[in-house]
Each structure stands twice: as C-alpha cells, then as structure tokens.
C-alpha cells in the first residue's frame, strides 16, 4: 500500500469524510447513508450459509483497505499508468485487453475507484447517448441516474457487500442509450487498481426502447501478483425491444478480493448476450442474475473461468423467468489448474405465469490437476407446467488418451494440454461474435495453461 492512498478503514469517520468530499445530490447522500446503516447492521456472511459454505473469506480483512477519498492515486505517477506499464509476460500487454484493433464509440476509465478519463464520439452524444463516469455524470444527469440506480436491479440490502457497495460506490460507469438509437461501435469501460488499492465501481447500463449497444468492461491490476479489494455492482436495464451485447472480463491481480452483485432486467422482446470471463482475483464471489420481465425476452450468457494457483472463483447465477415466452441459455465452462477451485451454483426460476419458458443451463469443468476442485450445483425452481427447462453439468480430468494421441502426432505434452483446453472452450468462443474479444480471451487463457499433471 502507498501513502497516496486514502486512510485505511471503512469506519464512520472515513465514510463521513468520503460523503463530504463528494458533494452529491441530496437523494444520493440519503441513499448512501441508508445503505451505510444497513451495512453496519448486517453481519458478515456465516460459514453455514448456502452461498458461503464453499467460499471461505475468513482471511479477508475489510480494514486493510480504505475508502477512496481525495484526488490522488498511484496511477497518477508517471510511468505507472494502466496501458503502458505491463511488463509481466503472463499478464496482458495493456490494461485494455479487449479493444485491440477495435474502433470504439467511447471509452471510460476509473483508477483506484476514481474517475480517470472518458470520451464519447460526438455523433453519439448528439443523439442523446450518455456515457462516462457515473461519479461525474451524477452532477449533470442526476435525475436520469436516480430513476435507475438501485431501483429495479441490484438490491442494496441483499448482504453486507451489497450494502457496503451501495453506500460507498465510486469509480462507476454509466451508459444511457435513448429510444431507437443503435450504437454501432462498442463502448469500453476499464476499472483499474494499484497494488493494495480498492475499486468500488458501479456499472449502470440503461437501454431505452429499441436501442442497441455493445459494451465491453474489464478490470486490471498492474501485475499478476497484486492485491486489492473490489466490492462492486452491475445493473443492466433493458427496455422493450432493446438489444445489448455485454462483455465483462475480470482480470485483477491474483491477490484481489472480488465481491460483485450483477443483475440485468430484460424487457419485452429485448435481448441480452452477456459474455463474462473470470481469470483474475484471489477470491471471487459473484451473484449474477438475469430477470426476464417482459414477454419474449431472451438472454444468452457465456461464462469462461480459468483458475490457477490457489485462486477461488464462485459464481451464483439465477435465470429468472418472470414473463411468458422467454428464453434463457446459460453456458459456463471452467478450466482449473494447480490447487485452484471454482464453485458454480446455477438456478433456473420460473414464475407461475411464465408459460412457454425455454430455459437451459450448463456448467462444464475441466480439471488440469488432481489438486484442483470444481463444485457444480445446478438447480431448478419451476412453478409453471408449460415449460421446457434443461440443465446439466460435467466435471472431469483431461483424458490421458487425448494427450497421447496428440503427442503421437508430434505435439509436446504442454502443447497437447493447451490444445485440449482451447478445444474445451471452443464451444463458448463460437458463441462470441466480437472477434477482438474471442482472440483476447483465448490468448489470455492459453498463456496461463501449463502442462497437464
């Protein structure tokens, strides 16, 4: 940790200082205070709670980290900027992995939970698109944000982390697309932290009726071994007939604690394709929730997880059919190396009136070491007769016969392992329509794959 970071601790005094320094609209101050109170009242998760029994956070100490107060950040040091300081071969070349060769409609970045820089092409701003730092836009587009922030998607009272986030969010991103506007180029959001830093970023994406956009979000640390704390949330609100392609890459250093609540609300005939990759962090606990609220809504979720060392990544997904004729298709694949562990707990929930639901969920795990462990717990909660819901999960080691076959054709054991791992993820890569994302994810994973042992 560095002296330029804020004072340690998430206590009343630092929270008051945080609020004071932000000078935000009264409704937001009120919302934050309420959430702060709720975070104080809530206990830390108990080890016997279903969501936490496989995810041990006893070593996590909140007060080792501090609220982002004041303008300084270690990223401000020359030569230590995201984007030009990645020497570590095992990591990505730059803070922005997903945008190689991509013409962007706009980009926004937060560093150590503070707004860094934002840009949006004038042609989209002229059409009423709002994009950039949530922290800054709250001063100019307060009413727009108030209408959506913590109103329909993420519930601040869900647990201690959601409450803490709602009280302290900072370094957030906002995209608002008005009716009938189709943004052709992707938009990019970066959240970066320095070693030992925090990111409390909130991502809010709102598409009005018949709007369309592609958003790529990613996180970054300077070096793969770096630590930190992310307590974040993502809210996606899709009005009828809107279409969002959403990519998120969690690529923190391997010492970062990552807690996230992510929820999308999908309206009538709207569609959401959500591709996520989780390859960073020391421990991740993510609640990912898609609620289909309007007839004919559809969602496809593609999840790619790769873990190594002692990494622990836990995903709790909920695909909630609250309206008739909706379709959801969740596919998660994880490959695990060394002593790492993944937990995937998936639920399809179908409300009584959600007739003609078509729900699918699947989780496949590939163990690259005998010491890795994957827990896969699919579930269905169906309160309606006229539905089609299927789920499945597999967990297995790399088949030695495949390795031998490839070796017999001249590939080394390591090359064979990589090939088999890339083949394992191919089904998901086939579903990713953005080439730069497909390439970046494939390479980020393959760089990490060692020999199957």
């Amino acid at each position, binding site marked *: 940790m560095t002296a330029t970071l804020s004072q340690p601790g998430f206590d009343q005094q630092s929270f008051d200082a945080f609020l004071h320094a932000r000078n935000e609209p009264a409704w937001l101050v009120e919302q934050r205070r309420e959430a702060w109170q709720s975070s104080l009242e809530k206990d830390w998760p108990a080890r016997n709670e279903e969501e936490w029994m496989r995810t041990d956070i006893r070593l996590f100490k909140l007060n080792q980290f501090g609220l982002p107060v004041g303008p300084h950040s270690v990223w401000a040091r020359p030569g230590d900027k995201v984007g030009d300081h990645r020497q570590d071969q095992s990591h990505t070349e730059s803070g922005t992995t997903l945008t190689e060769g991509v013409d962007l409609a706009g980009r926004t970045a937060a560093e150590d939970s503070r707004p860094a820089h934002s840009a949006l092409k004038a042609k989209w701003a002229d059409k009423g698109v709002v994009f950039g730092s949530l922290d800054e836009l709250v001063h100019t587009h307060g009413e727009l944000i108030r209408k959506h922030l913590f109103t329909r998607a993420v519930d601040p009272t869900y647990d201690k982390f959601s409450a803490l986030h709602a009280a302290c969010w900072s370094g957030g991103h906002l995209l608002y697309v008005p009716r009938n506007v189709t943004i052709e180029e992707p938009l990019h959001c970066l959240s970066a932290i320095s070693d030992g830093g925090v990111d409390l970023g909130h991502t809010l994406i709102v598409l009005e009726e018949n709007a369309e956009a592609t958003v790529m979000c990613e996180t970054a640390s300077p070096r793969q071994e770096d630590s930190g704390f992310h307590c974040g949330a993502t809210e996606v609100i899709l009005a009828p007939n809107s279409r969002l392609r959403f990519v998120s890459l969690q690529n923190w250093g391997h010492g970062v604690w990552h807690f996230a609540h992510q929820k999308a609300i999908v309206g009538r005939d709207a569609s959401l394709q959500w591709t996520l990759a989780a390859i960073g962090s020391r421990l991740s606990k993510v609640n990912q929730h898609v609620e289909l609220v309007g007839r004919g809504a559809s969602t496809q979720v593609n999840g790619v997880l790769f873990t190594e060392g002692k990494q622990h990544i836990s995903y709790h997904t909920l695909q909630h059919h609250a309206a008739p004729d909706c379709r959801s298709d969740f596919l998660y694949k994880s490959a695990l190396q060394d002593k790492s562990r993944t937990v995937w707990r998936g639920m399809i929930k179908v409300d009584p009136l959600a007739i003609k639901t078509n729900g699918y969920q699947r989780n496949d795990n590939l163990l690259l070491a005998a010491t890795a462990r994957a827990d896969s717990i699919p579930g269905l909660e169906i309160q309606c007769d006229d539905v089609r819901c299927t789920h499945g999960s597999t967990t297995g080691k790399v088949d030695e016969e*495949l390795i*031998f*076959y490839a070796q017999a054709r*001249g590939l*080394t054991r*390591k090359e064979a392992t990589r090939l088999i791992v890339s*083949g394992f993820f191919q089904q998901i890569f086939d579903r990713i329509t953005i080439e730069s994302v497909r390439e970046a994810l494939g390479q980020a994973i393959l760089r990490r794959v060692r020999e199957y042992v």
Partner: protein
Amino acid sequence: MTDTLKIDNLHVSVEGKPILRGVNLTIRRGETHALMGPNGSGKSTLGLVIMGHPKYQVTAGTMTLNGENLLDKSADERARLGLFYAFQRPVAIPGVKLADFLRHAATNVRHPERKEGEELMPMREFRRELKGKMEQLRMESEFARRYVNDGFSGGEMKRAEILQLAMLQPKIAILDETDSGLDADAVRLASQSIAEIGREKMGLLIITHHDKLLEHNPPDFTHVILGGRIVETGGVELANELHTQGYDRIRQAYPDADEANRKMVEKEEAAAVA
C-alpha cells in the same frame, strides 16, 4: 544408411500383466511388413509401445531407431524422429479443428528443433499442401474444418489417420487395422493412397485381418503373432495362407503361445464382464 527400426527381445506389461513376451522385429525404410494374429495376441500393444504409450511398461528388451535408444523417449520425441502409428481406435479432440491440429503436428515433425511457442509453418503453404493431399485422398475440404475425430464415423476416422500419415511423411509407419470399418471401395482408395504417399519412402508395418490392404501393398515379410510372441515369419505366401486357412495350423504348432493367448483373452473377457 537405411532408416531402421530394431526391436529385440521386447517384453511388455500393462498394469503388471505381461502381454508381449520377447518380440524381435526389424523394419527398414522401403519394406512392407504384415503383422497378423488372432484377437488379443498383442498387435495393438506392439504398435502403441513402439509409439511410446505411457501405460505400457517395457520390462525387458531394446528398441532403437538408427541405433538410437527409443525407450527413454516420449511419444512426441518419437514422432519427431519419424515414427507414426495410425490408431486402431482414434480418439476425438472436441473443439480442435483437424487442420489446426495437423498444422501444429506437421510443423513439429518437420522441425524437430522447434521450441514451444515458436511460429507454426506458414498458413498458406500449409493450406496448399493440405488441399493437395485431401484431393489425392478424395476428401471434401470441409473435412479439415471439423473437430479432430469428433462425431466421425469409423471410416472417416481411418481416412483422417491416412491423411495425417500423408502430411507427416514418417520414416516408419504402423497401420493398426486402418482398413477395418472401410468398405471395399474405401479400402482400395486407402491402398492407393498409401502407394501414392510413397510406400517405398517408408517402412510399413500393416496390422490387418483382411487381405484387401495387403493385395495392394504386398508384404515383403509376414509375421504371425500369438500370445505376445512372433511365432513365425514368412513372405507374402504366409499372409495368403492365414487368409484362406486361418490360425489352426499356427495354434497347433505353438501350443504354449496358443495357451498364453487364450489366457490373455479370457482375462480380457472376465474384465469386460466385471
């Protein structure tokens, strides 16, 4: 010097169970050998152990290529030295396109010194060569875009093995029942392909139950394996005899080997039931 694979007094066990009991065999580049024997006599084991399958333990004997010891080499090192085994039962690698797999394989085999992560052979050059070989084998170009053996029919798998043989151009190749699962036309095509790939440029060990493949590739030597031992070696006439008259004479002439074979097969059947 002619490239020579030399196997001496080879004893092999799997999971502690002896399978090969003293195999002697020498294959030179340019020669065609047939290996024939009843089910469970150890034909595939011999092929797999030559290629270096880690499950098979060599308990005695030697195996060299041009005098160089093979037994301490991994399968990929052997492939780079010029050995090839066409699998009796190829395995599928889902998500990996046959063309990508082959480009990697061909690069490694042709550049044995290549280090991991170094460039693969140029895409255009590879594509052109692959296209030519596939036309020769009368394969649809779409075939190379399918995932390795994934959802292939038995015949498609065997044809994919022949395509790989053609691309990798080994010094010594073992074809393990590459003709089974193929209809008569396909066997003729496969035989022609092998001739076109250049039978005389390779040393061939053909493991087969049928006579079709041998008809087009008449063996210089025929070996009969029973109970994990090569009990007889002859010329093409021995192959013809076995095709027309079966193994009765051999079984009677070598009762010990016959007994050993019976025991191995019984164990296999018992294991299959259990």
